[in-house]
Every structure is written in structure tokens, then in C-alpha cells.
């Protein structure tokens, strides 16, 4: 692997890549004082708009901004068209996989995916077995994490099919950039993303359980203290639908109603941002205060649509991830457009031995971990941390996977010392319903600490606007 990561803006020789030329030109011409002033303005505006997230475990009322960096991540048209094809293909296969897993399990019968990867998977929901969901769609909204490594190849790092978040930052970042630097948009063709909420609404309405003329859609949130609350409220507002909490809904005769000032009103489609476990205390965790008793029964009776469906986690689990390219071949008879990162399955003894012998070069992840936690980054680890992981892996090899340390691409980013390269990833949002669509763009996350590869907002990550050129 080359020692220098792929720089989005410049070639190894230091020349500005063609698609960054207008931006490089602009930043060279713009006085630093104006840029500094605009950066302050952005921070104040984000506070006022309230695009903040609550930090668990800190003082009540403490709200933080996810740092926003004004240097955009720019994707040229040809790269995007390949990404778009690859992402649609991947999500189609994943939805086909879910439909198969919860019905005939043909893919296991064919020996493509080991049966125990499904049956022993904590994310597999036996309650969903044999149930028909509208259109056979399980993951209505998928956030697929894509990274760029090596000489610039795109890889899929993770499929998020449960309740992927972050799309509000994609939209607010764009709004902010257009407000701060309209001149940049006037001189270049940057494809718009602001119609995302319309697409989402159209998609959700198309998934109504009945051929209702005017189905009622609602967004279900755990409440104002959830760290992603801003996004839930934002999407409900942008779509013009009610933002409900569990306490606002009730179920009677397998039908879901909202409590309104004029009495009960039926709900047909719920875009839920509450995890499976908490959706219905009668069906899942009995101690859940966030859910709606009877919701699962109504769902099984086909009286309400949940987006995403229950039990999608079985397809985005890290133990299933290595099989996604084979799923694409199995269900679609196509070759994958986007590659996976090479992954060692520690449940295979030979791969496990290799990993244990090479921990300092690899990234080890817990199969069920998320948010950058439960992870060992070999090259940055201490001997003690490696020993600790070695013991944990030996105790439960099938709880882990390992991947080579990817040298994620970098993008110039404002740091204390001025513009400096920082590692980035990309999360586009794929919508599946009657059609599979995505807006040209996504959320670019950036690891703000020098050399860091962890882009998660809970661990020092920031965001950037993502420009797909026309």
C-alpha cells in the first residue's frame, strides 16, 4: 500500500485535480479574514438553527455542534455515476436478501451464506419469519458508508440498514454553503440535494399497506433527548408530517392511531427512528417506554408499514458484510460495481490465526459494534491493547472480523494551523420503495484530529458539504 493517502484535491505531484480547480482558485483569491469571518458565521448560524446533538453523560442541556468544515468534498460526475450504480445495486441485493432470509432462505440452501450466520445472528428476528411486507422492501432508507483508499478506489465499508442518521447534516451543510458562499454555486454546476425530503415522503407514501388515496405518514422519535432528535424533527417538518413519540400513538383492533386534539387519527406509514428492541413492549423489550404496545401485532396484520422494517440488522451486520458481493451475484446475476474491503472472518480458524499474528497491521471490529466503539486500530494500538483484544478474540472468535488498515483518502480541512489534510468517508442515502433512488450527494464525515481515521461525531469527527458535479 502506498504510504501517502489519496488526496481528493491534489495529485501526488501536488497539482490541483481538475474538478477542484475552481474551488482552489476561489480560495487562493479570497482574503483569509473573509473566510475566518464566514466560518464564525457558520458556527453561530448552526447554534441558532439548533443543529446540535445532545451528548450522553454530560450535563443536562449541554448541546454541541458537530464541527462543520467549509472545504467541500467534490465528486466528479463520472465517479458519481459509478457510485450511484454500485449503491443501487448493493441495496437492491440487500433488500432481496432480507426478503429471502425471512421467507425461503434460498441463499442458505444454495450454500452462499452459511445458515448459522443467519440463525445465530442476534439481529435476526424470528418474529418476522414468513411475514409479507409491502413491495418486499425492508430497508427503505439505507446509509451506505463508502471510503476511498489506495490509489483512489471506492470501497463499501459498512451498510447501515436499521435507522441510519446524518441526512439532515447533508441538507443543512448544503444550505449553509449556499448561504455563505453563493459565488461558488453561481460559477459551477453542483447537483442539488434539497429534494431529499420530497423523495423520502413519496417513497414512504408509496409503501402504505392499503391502496389508500391519502395515506398518513408519521415520523416516530424516541424524543427530544435523543442525540439525533434534531434530525427527526427536521425530516418531519420538511416532509410536513407529524413527529410522534410512542405516547402519541395507540393501537386498537390492530390499527394504529395518533392522539389528536380532535380525537384518534389513523396512521398508515411510520418512518420510525426507534430501534427494533424498543418499538413495542409487548413484542420486544417489555421495559421500553419509547414504544407503542400492540404495534408489532398491527404490523404483522399488515395494517401499518414500518420503515425500515423490523429485523433489517441481520443484513448490515459485520458478519454478513463479507457475503454481500456474493449476494449481488446470487440475486441479481451481476458483478458488484463497488468492492468490499477485504475482510477476515475470525470464525474461520486459519484466518483467525493470521489475524492474531498480525494485529498491529489490522483493524479489528466487533461484529455488533457501532459508532467506532469496540474497535482496535492495529497501527495506533499499544501492546497492552493488542493483548487485551487477542484474549477477547480467542474467547469468542465469531464475535469479530478484521480488515487491513485502510489509508482513507484525505481532503483539505481547516485546522488550527491552517488548511491541512484530514481523512474522510462518505455516506450516501439510498431510498427504496417502488423505485430505488438517491440524491447526488451524501454526508462527508471528516476525522478532525491529525492522522485519525475515526470520523464518528461522538469521537472528534466533523462534516463537510459534498458536491457532486453535473
Amino acid at each position, binding site marked *: 500500500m502506498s504510504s501517502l493517502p489519496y488526496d481528493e484535491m491534489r495529485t501526488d505531484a501536488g497539482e490541483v485535480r481538475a474538478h477542484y480547480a475552481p474551488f482552489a482558485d476561489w480560495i487562493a483569491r479570497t482574503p483569509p479574514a473573509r473566510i475566518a469571518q464566514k466560518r464564525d458565521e457558520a458556527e453561530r448560524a448552526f*447554534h*441558532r*438553527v*439548533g443543529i446540535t446533538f445532545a451528548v450522553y453523560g454530560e450535563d443536562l442541556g449541554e448541546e454541541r455542534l458537530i464541527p462543520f468544515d467549509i472545504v467541500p468534498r467534490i465528486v466528479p460526475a463520472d465517479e458519481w455515476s459509478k457510485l450511484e450504480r454500485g449503491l443501487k445495486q448493493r441495496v437492491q441485493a440487500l433488500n432481496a436478501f432480507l426478503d429471502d432470509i425471512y421467507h425461503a432462505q434460498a441463499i442458505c440452501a444454495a450454500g452462499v451464506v452459511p445458515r448459522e450466520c443467519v440463525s445465530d445472528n442476534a439481529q435476526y428476528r424470528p418474529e418476522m419469519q414468513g411475514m409479507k411486507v409491502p413491495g418486499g422492501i425492508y430497508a427503505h432508507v439505507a446509509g451506505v458508508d463508502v471510503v476511498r483508499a489506495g490509489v483512489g478506489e471506492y470501497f463499501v465499508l459498512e451498510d447501515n440498514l436499521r435507522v441510519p442518521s446524518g441526512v439532515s447534516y447533508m441538507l443543512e451543510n448544503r444550505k449553509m454553503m449556499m448561504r455563505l458562499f453563493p459565488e461558488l454555486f453561481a460559477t459551477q454546476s453542483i447537483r442539488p440535494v434539497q429534494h431529499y425530503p420530497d423523495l423520502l415522503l413519496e417513497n414512504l407514501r408509496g409503501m402504505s399497506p392499503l391502496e389508500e388515496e391519502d395515506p398518513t405518514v408519521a415520523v416516530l422519535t424516541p*424524543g*427530544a433527548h435523543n442525540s439525533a*432528535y434534531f434530525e427527526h*424533527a*427536521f425530516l*418531519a*417538518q420538511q416532509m410536513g408530517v*407529524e*413527529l*410522534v*413519540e410512542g*405516547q*402519541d400513538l*395507540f393501537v*386498537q383492533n390492530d*390499527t394504529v*392511531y*395518533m*392522539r*389528536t*386534539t*380532535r*380525537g*384518534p*387519527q*389513523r396512521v398508515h406509514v411510520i418512518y420510525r427512528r426507534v430501534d427494533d428492541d424498543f418499538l413495542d413492549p409487548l413484542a420486544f423489550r417489555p421495559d421500553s417506554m419509547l414504544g407503542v404496545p400492540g404495534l408489532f401485532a398491527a404490523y404483522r396484520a399488515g395494517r401499518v408499514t414500518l420503515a425500515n422494517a423490523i429485523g433489517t440488522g441481520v443484513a448490515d451486520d459485520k458478519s454478513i458484510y463479507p457475503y454481500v458481493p456474493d449476494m449481488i451475484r446470487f440475486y441479481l446475476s451481476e458483478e458488484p460495481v463497488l468492492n468490499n474491503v477485504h475482510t477476515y472472518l475470525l470464525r474461520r480458524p486459519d484466518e483467525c490465526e493470521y489475524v492474531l499474528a498480525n494485529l498491529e497491521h489490522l483493524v479489528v471490529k466487533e461484529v455488533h459494534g457501532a459508532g467506532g466503539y469496540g474497535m482496535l486500530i492495529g497501527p495506533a494500538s499499544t501492546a497492552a491493547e493488542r493483548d487485551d483484544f487477542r484474549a477477547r478474540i480467542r474467547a469468542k472468535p465469531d464475535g469479530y472480523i478484521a480488515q487491513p488498515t485502510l489509508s482513507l483518502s484525505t481532503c483539505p480541512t481547516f485546522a488550527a494551523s491552517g488548511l491541512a489534510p484530514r481523512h474522510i468517508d462518505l455516506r450516501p442515502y439510498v431510498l427504496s420503495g417502488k423505485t430505488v433512488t438517491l440524491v447526488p450527494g451524501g454526508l462527508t464525515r471528516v476525522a478532525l484530529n491529525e492522522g485519525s481515521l475515526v470520523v464518528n461525531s461522538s469521537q472528534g469527527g466533523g462534516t463537510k458539504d459534498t458536491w457532486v458535479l453535473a
Partner: protein
Amino acid sequence: MLSRTAHELFWMARHIERAENTARILDVTYRMSLLPYDAVESGLAWAEPWAVPLISSGLATSFYKRYQTLSAENVLRYMILDANNDSSIQCCLWAARESARSVRGAITSEMYEDLNSSWLEMRGYDFEKIQAYGVSEFMDWVKMRSHLIRGVTFGTMLRDEAYHFIRLGTHLERADNTARILDVKYHILLPSAADVGGAVDYYQWGALLRSVSGFESYRKIYRDVITPRRVAELLILRDDMPRSLHSCMNLIQETLEKLCNGHSQEIQRATGELHARLHYGRTDDIIRYGLHEYLMDFLDRISALGDAIERDFFATGQAASPQ
């Protein structure tokens, strides 16, 4: 709309209005406290002006639980910044902003941003900062933020149920606050009947009128000395005076007509009755009945109306009886 959303909007509006009224009464108290009353009329005992805001908002008892002495600083701290006082300006703005945040989809972005930035600015104030900025200037700021939010609401919001619940909250709270402010005079040591029209009375009634932005209107309408009878008429019965009880009840009745549902007949009736008392009431009858007694009765009715709204609008949908 969702009952919970309606409930939050109603209280968001009440808290903003309450913050404004608290600022009004504190400002007037502060101005009064600067007057050299002894010099104005020696020998006439005034009630300590700093007791006024506590009495009118019914907070004297809880104040003395936390503070030993009645002083300008203690009252200002308690009424502006104290986190233990749910009606302090800071708590009201916090509660309004939390309500807005929990239903931000139901209001316009501009409303949320103005309310949120008001809160963020409020959070930056401590007592020393307020003193440095100026107490009256600070109260003006609170009033201006309230005006701004109301203006943005008026200018940007769809005239839907959400809007009506906000208006309902605003006017219910205002009716309550105006009645309390008017009743203040009862609690201040009343000068004897002979002193009516004297300097002390002039300043007290003048201050009271100013606190509800009614001083200039009074002059315009009566072109004469300030008398309790006319102040009562202005703030209770005149429906062209935007903070009067009659004017508030007009808006409450009008709003409730738009919001009526299958459960709200009793609210409609009680509102109509209370409105009729103001619409057909006579100043002489009020004075004969006793201004203080009249206002106490009004406050009881307003409070009962608030309870009925909670019951008939915000607790609906619980009864699971869909068609």
C-alpha cells in the same frame, strides 16, 4: 393535530407571555423604586415596591423560603434568574424553548430560530451582566424578544390549529397577568379616599398603566387625571385596549370557536359566560362589588378555563373510540 403538540405550543406561548409580563412588572417596580417617595409626600407609608412583583405573581412565600431580605437585588435575582422559580424569566424562556424544540416541526423555522437565539442569549446573562447592561435595558430586551417572536408568529405561520393554540395560550396568560397587575394596587397600602388624585396615587397608577403599555392610551381616551375607576374600566372593560381583560376574552372566545371539538361544549359555554360579563359589565358594578374581589373571581375563572382546556383538548384521543 397531535394533542401533545397542541399542549406544548399552548405552553410555549404562555411562557413567552409570562416572561414578557414579568419583565414589565419588574421594570415598573424598578422605576418606582428610583423615585424619592418620601420627598413626594412625606408621612405616607408606601408598601416596599419590591414586594409588588412577588405579590402579584403569588410568589412571596416561595421567595422568603430562599431569601432572607426583601431587596432589589434579591427580587431581581429571584424573578429573572432563579432556576428554582418556574416563573423566572430565565425559566420561562427555557421552558418555551424546550417546548418549541419538542414540536419544532409544528412552527416555522424562523420562529424556532428567534426563540432559540433568545434562549441562547438569555443563558449568557448573570446578575452582574444585567446590572452592567442596565436593568431597564434588560427588561426592554425581554419585551422586544417577546414582540419579535409574536411578530414572527403572526407574520409567518399558517393559520392552522397550531397557530390557534399559540394564540389561545398567549391571551389566556395575558388575561391572567393583566388581572394580577391590576390587583397589585390592592396590596399596596391604599391612601385614604381623600388622597385619590394626589402625587403618590398618580405615580402608583401611572406606573401600573405603564407596565401594561396603557399610560398613553389612558391619556388619549380620558384626557384627565388618573382615577382608579377609569384605570379599572380601561384594563377590564375596554375592548380596544389590547391587554385588557375584555380584549383578551374576545380573542380567547374567537380562537376557541375555531378549535371546538366534540368535547369542548362546556369550555365554549364557560368562555361565553365570562366574555359576556366583560362585554356587558359596568364599571360601577365592579367598583361596588369590590375591584379586588372581582379580580380574584376572574382569576379563578381563568384558571378553571385553563384546566378545562388541558382536559378537553390535550387529553383527548386517550379514550379509544375511533369511528
